[in-house]
């Protein structure tokens, strides 16, 4: 398995003028009157954007400074991703953007326009549950559970990229996720059990 290329969704790409113009055509309903040419400006204040989340288009009001995490949690009540450090240091807010893990607290909501966002909520629907989630339960890979959704998303990415990851690969892929209760060993067991076809 190879690692997919960086999808390029970051605060940096937002700062490039061309990137802003690019995303503006793919779903941002600007509140400013349409100018004949040149870059579109947003703010101050809120405007509505469309995000592709778990295969559905969702409208949400954001400011230019609103993070993807706040847009998901406060704007759309998708509270699986947690706000823990708000500085990209703990992985509690991990979601997938175009298949790669990102810390949604370090991603501006506007930067995620046009990208496919996958959150923890996509891994279960009533009683239908993704095997990885099932294996987190089976292996008791949680205690307080606050880091768990982020752990699950990093684990999912690990499995998708690596198939049958080694311990070193799992440690690499989970190294951005902090757990205070000390569940790391069991998280890796849950990944391995999923790779071996368990939990289906």
């Amino acid at each position, binding site marked *: 398995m190879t690692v997919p290329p960086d999808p390029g969704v970051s605060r940096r790409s937002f700062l490039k003028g061309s990137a802003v113009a690019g995303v503006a055509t793919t779903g941002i309903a600007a509140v400013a009157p349409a100018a004949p040419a040149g870059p579109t400006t947003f703010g101050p204040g809120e405007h509505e954007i469309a995000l592709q989340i778990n295969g559905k288009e969702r409208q949400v009001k954001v*400011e230019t400074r609103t993070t993807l995490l706040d847009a998901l949690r406060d704007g759309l009540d998708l509270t699986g991703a947690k706000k823990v450090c708000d500085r990209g240091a703990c992985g509690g807010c991990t979601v997938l953007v175009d298949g790669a893990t990102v810390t949604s607290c370090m991603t501006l909501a506007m930067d995620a326009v046009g990208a496919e966002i996958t959150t923890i909520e996509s891994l279960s629907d009533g009683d239908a549950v993704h095997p990885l989630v099932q294996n987190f339960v089976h292996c008791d890979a949680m205690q307080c*559970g606050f*880091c768990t959704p982020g752990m699950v998303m990093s684990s999912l990415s690990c499995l998708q990229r690596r198939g049958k990851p080694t311990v070193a690969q799992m440690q690499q892929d989970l190294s951005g996720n902090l757990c205070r209760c000390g569940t790391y060993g069991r998280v890796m067991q849950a990944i391995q059990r999923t790779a071996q076809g368990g939990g289906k």
Partner: protein
Amino acid sequence: MNARTPQEDVKIRVGYKALPGQKGDRLEERTVKPAAGDAPPWDAMTQFALVGSDVDRVDGLAKASGRAKYSYDVTFPGMLQAMILRSPVPRGKLTALELDEAARMPGVQAVVALKEVGNKVRFVGDAIAAVAGVNLHAVRDAIERIRAEYDREEHNVDYLVADDAPMVDEKGAISEDWPADEGMTAALLEAKVTHDATYRVEVQTHSSLETHGGVARWTGNDLEVWLSTQATFGCRGELARALQGKKIDVGSVTIHSEFVGGGFGSKFGAGIEGLALCLLAHAAKAPVKLMLDRFEEHTTTGNRPGALMQARGGVDAEGRIVAWDWRSFGHAGFSASGGSVAVPNYYTADAKVRRNHKDLAIDADPPRPMRAPGHPQGWFGAELFLDELAAKAGVDPLTFRLNNDREQIRQDQWRFAAERFGWAAARARANEPGARLLRGVGLSSARWGNLGNPGRPAHGITCRIHQDGTVETRSGAQEPGVGTKTMLSVITAEELGVDLKLVKATVGHTGDPSGPASGGSTVTPSLAPAARHAAFLAKQQLCELVAKHLGVPAANVTCAGGLVGLGKEQLRWAEACKLIGPNPIDVRGQRFANYDSKPFHGSQCGVQMAEVEIDSWTGFVRVTRMFGIQDCGLVIARKLAESQVLGAMIQGVSYALHEQRIMDKRSGRMLNGDFLRYKITGVRDLPELECHMHSIANGHDSVGAAGLGEPPSVASAAAIANAVFHALRAPVRHLPITPDKVLKALAQKG
């Protein structure tokens, strides 16, 4: 059998069967007198259907799927967000506070003062005022417009230079004479080998992933608060009192706390953030959410205090400890309390013993209890001291423990752990001369002394059986991640003889029966007997219904294995429950007093061993493997119990090697109040971990369960420090054992 209530004496078997590989059961008979109406006691001979098995965490799917709603996740239409303005001054007085401009900012709905002009400011992070607005951007903008001014006083955030601090030499050792004590002097003179050394630990923050705070909503004068807490009932009382003190008309106060993202001892009170939340919601006439940010969490919600500890002692020619002198100084905050240190007492039964402790005040956030308060600090100092003393006396550390440890349970545990861990071989393995990687192994004991209590008034549990066959078990106590819902479900299903899937446990709403705070590992041993009693009472009522239906005497009806009836006349559980009718069987079980008789053992014993690998070029320490054996009382849900023990060992790695609050002396501010610079153990630091759950029937109450927050948290850092001592052949007497300290120890050794 169900209707028979044992009020007479009951003989039970307590203790434990021989550990794997060992000979001889440690079982004893006890006569106990259960309270009238309580369930008959479970003991060492009880055969269980569910208890002790590998059940899944009952709310595991809710947590792993992201559906679990923590206080941080609760939201309401029109809900406001809020933040607190914090003092940048470590010590002084508030001389001006102007809130008007902030209140006029767009989107702002309420501003409240949390200090009045003239009030003292006690530390960087002391709460000054709070703002609620439509979103955090608006609130942050408004906070910047509050004008607060301070008279600054001289401050000190270093306890080693506090007024009452002892003299310390350039190596960090206490250089002040020991207070005179003739008995101690004589005991030390008689000893064959003596030792004297100073140990030190740094401040650790709890670092719960869900920060403190919650959501408050008023309906008229009725208040509901969704709070991230370890003490629903304590917070209810605290908030009601505080609001009354602010002359606010309070009808009812209800706390909700279904899911809590960790607490570790820091979340017993609603705190200033809890009060601010309720005041803002009252003023704004709208629901308000206020969750602390990570810096506030590190700097304003307590910590495990640092400590400076000195030990001296001696052994006789037989290697027995004859003198044990101990003094410690706690790194307390402005409250000048909470810094105390605990040390083991089971090695020194025949020794002359003295212990002294003093807390030293500084201008910082005060300590709060943290997983086994005082214990990891003191065990680190005491167990490393013992290894140094043993080394001077030329005795192997394990032999030294076996010679001096007076607990039978731990004598078995020491031998069992040594066998499993491969102690003798690992200890004998010498590092090659000139080798870059140095290996070593170390060990430590553990104890915790709390097996639950009835509460005042008695804790309770509601049990309901519905006509559809489902069962509810409810407690108003909270669950910060330890598995209380699973414990309640397993006990209830076991007592009723039904499938675990039929039982739904609910915790965390103060409308339900009262339970203890999640502290001191008391929730499981306090509530398990109450849950059992509730199920026992509900079962009796169901048996009576079935007896009436079958026309048989109720006293002989049994309820087990999903069948209710007498002899060949048995109803399936679902059929039996149809007799209940629209109103459920609804009973309240009670936590009775602990049995009068002496329990098998009044505390919990444990032993841990650790192996480290140290890079002598960089000073970097890696814990490669750990083994722990832990007295768990009656194990109720095996996987969950193991999770707690393994988690405690990982936290021990963190405490031994990584965690340290660093204060800036000039500003009084924490320099590393975030997860980038305050390091907690990550997945790459994970050793190979194994634990053995030592199930012991303690004969304490009808269940005999024990909590596992504290017990496994005591030994880990001490065992790692001893392993480092073995690897380096020189002790590092100051936690965390960071590379600089390792290199210094190597350099001093020469």
